[in-house]
């Protein structure tokens, strides 16, 4: 679905991506992980043309990402950020139907599609009528997801989607998202700093460090055959209650 060839990107003197080659296949869920500043967000933003490589090429569905075709290409991609990225002056329903409306969908079709997705994402009744400020964090995240799924895109890109939620909601939403991904069979790429979340949601992990890919593969592969001490260190750096003395 996505192919990156020798992608370089720098901001001033900081190198964000240093010659990344990556192939993201259709239908799977890929998680980009790594320490802060490793370049995982930059990589994700490059997939939807919010960043452009200084050198190298990004291909989407077999053809290069191009500014002049971006509008059309972006509509084949759903994009969700932390807190959902909802527009505060529009109700949830207006947020969700924004793009469909500009494409000339009828109001009835928009309503039907958003109700269907609201069911799928387990958004409570009536929440679509509210403004983002009247929704809880988890609900905002769900509305963001519904908005991304509206045009039934081939790809979902999620940038730290659950970053701002409290642990219980987060746990609940992780489970629902895994179920959703399995059901929709879409290509999903997500960025997270939570290794457990990545391993739970994704079938492929891509570990980045200093703008380079250190290792990629199934979670089990990274755990069992790490290519170096850093991979092992990173995977097990997080504490859990099991660490209690």
């Amino acid at each position, binding site marked *: 679905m996505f192919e990156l060839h020798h992608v370089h990107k720098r901001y001033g003197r900081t190198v964000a991506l240093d010659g990344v080659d990556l192939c993201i296949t259709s239908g799977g869920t890929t998680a980009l992980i790594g320490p802060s500043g490793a370049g995982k967000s930059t990589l994700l933003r490059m997939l939807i043309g919010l960043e452009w490589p200084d050198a190298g090429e990004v291909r989407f569905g077999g053809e290069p990402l191009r500014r002049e075709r971006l509008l059309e290409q972006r509509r084949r991609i759903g994009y969700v950020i932390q807190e959902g990225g909802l527009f505060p002056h529009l109700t949830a329903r207006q947020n969700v139907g924004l*793009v469909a409306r500009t494409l000339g969908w009828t109001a009835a079709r928009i309503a039907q599609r958003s109700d269907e997705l609201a069911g799928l994402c387990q958004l409570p009744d009536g929440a679509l009528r509210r403004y983002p400020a009247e929704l809880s964090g988890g609900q905002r995240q769900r509305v963001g997801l519904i908005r991304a799924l509206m045009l039934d895109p081939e790809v979902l890109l999620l940038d730290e989607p659950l970053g701002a939620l409290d642990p219980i909601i987060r746990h609940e939403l992780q489970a629902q998202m895994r179920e959703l991904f399995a059901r929709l069979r879409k290509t999903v790429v997500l960025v997270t700093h939570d290794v457990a979340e990545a391993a739970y949601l994704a079938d492929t992990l891509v570990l980045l460090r200093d703008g380079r890919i250190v290792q990629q593969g199934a979670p089990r592969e990274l755990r069992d055959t790490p290519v170096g001490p850093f991979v092992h260190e990173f995977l097990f750096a997080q504490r859990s209650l099991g660490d209690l003395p």
Partner: protein
Amino acid sequence: MNAAATCLVRLLRRPCLCALLLACCTPLMAQQRDAAEVVIGSKNFTESVILGEIGAGLAREAGVPARHRRQLGGTRILWRALAEGQVDAYPEYTGTLALELLAMPDADHAALRAALAERGLAMTAPLGFNNTYALGMRSDRARALRIGSIGDLRAHPRLRLGFSNEFMQRADGWPGLRAAYGLPQRANGLDHDLAYRGLASGALDVTDLYRTDAEIPYYELAVLEDERGFFPAYDAVYLYRADLRERASRWVEALEGLAGRIDADAMQRLNARVKLQGEAEAAVAADWLGVAATEPQGRATRIWRRTLEHLALVGVSLGLALLVALPLGVLAARRPRLGQVVLTLSGLLQTLPSLAVFVFMIPLLGIGAKPAIAALFLYSLLPIVRNTHAGITGIPRELRETASALGLPPRTRLWRIELPLALRTILAGIKTAAVINVGTATLGALIGAGGYGQPILAGIRLDDIALILEGAVPAAALALGVQGLFELVERLLTPRGLRLAARH
């Protein structure tokens, strides 16, 4: 977004609405002049306004429809307006003409006429009075000391002399006078109006005055003779456009017919009737001409008319500024480099003094409402451009990025996301522009644009507080009203979602 905001945004998207706005503006802008009508102007002081009224009255008597553009901002504005054909005639003084306007200090009347003819202008024969500087003292004291002329002052070195500050400074004022007559006294500078009171109370013996000042008979002053002819002649004349001889020959004949008919004492009396007895210039002029005065308007009618004029100035200039400044602000936000240029330029416009802008505008737009609207338009640009720019660039980065990542076309992004999110800031800018506009529009009276500035100018000229308040109070009320109106609009247009978000 709530219904009102959606509706406004939709309306603004219609090009036909913009066209309609422009169409509404056009009749106000145009103020078409009747081809046969002649226009006489006058400067912002009583004597000039009276002479303007007399000139206009003569035209009407001669069967020529005439309009009087009264109390325009100053010599420069009238001179340019005459040169550009915005006024056909106005009263002027030969001294001003020679020294200030033509810069021919030693020219006689024939030379002045020749210089005017080169510019397509002409002047009438002198009206009969010379409104030059003069020295005056109380007549009882002058009689007691046997002083009849400036030279006589030499014999009384202990006399106290007080002169207006301008007279103290000018080379052709006190320094020159003192040298020319060898006067021994020292003089103090003070305010012109205070000088009259100083003379009356006896704190002062001699001051400078204009020959036709209304206060001369009022305070029973004697004007000392300038026996050496030190002061240049300021003979009153009408300047007029040479083509008037063809267009309105009977009026020119009537103006020329005034030659020698108004002497200094007569002018003094006319000034006194307006300045000291509070009669209207039009009534005094009509009385002198021996015709019936036009009925003066009641205060309510007057204020209503001024209000309409003022609203037109503010409304049209603000409407046009909106049409230009909003797109400029959006452009500035989209293109940072170009934006810097736009912001700098509109900032620069703000620093231009309004009177200077008015004078620049006369060749382009003449006098009246148009140049005033143009100036107000220019002053309104900065707050609107700046706030539109700030409102759009102030939208959180993640929201702007999400809007583009969703695949919304740029137009939709602007109208559905960026403008609604920036609406509050933009409205605040429009409000600032409108309130400043209401205040600045009072200056429009200097170029004959009417509005609340008209009574303010007249009030200052006549030292009439009530008249000043007649303009200043409604202007202040209008400013408050505009402020309130925009706060209401802001409340109506702010989408509920944003009000909720602001509370969190």
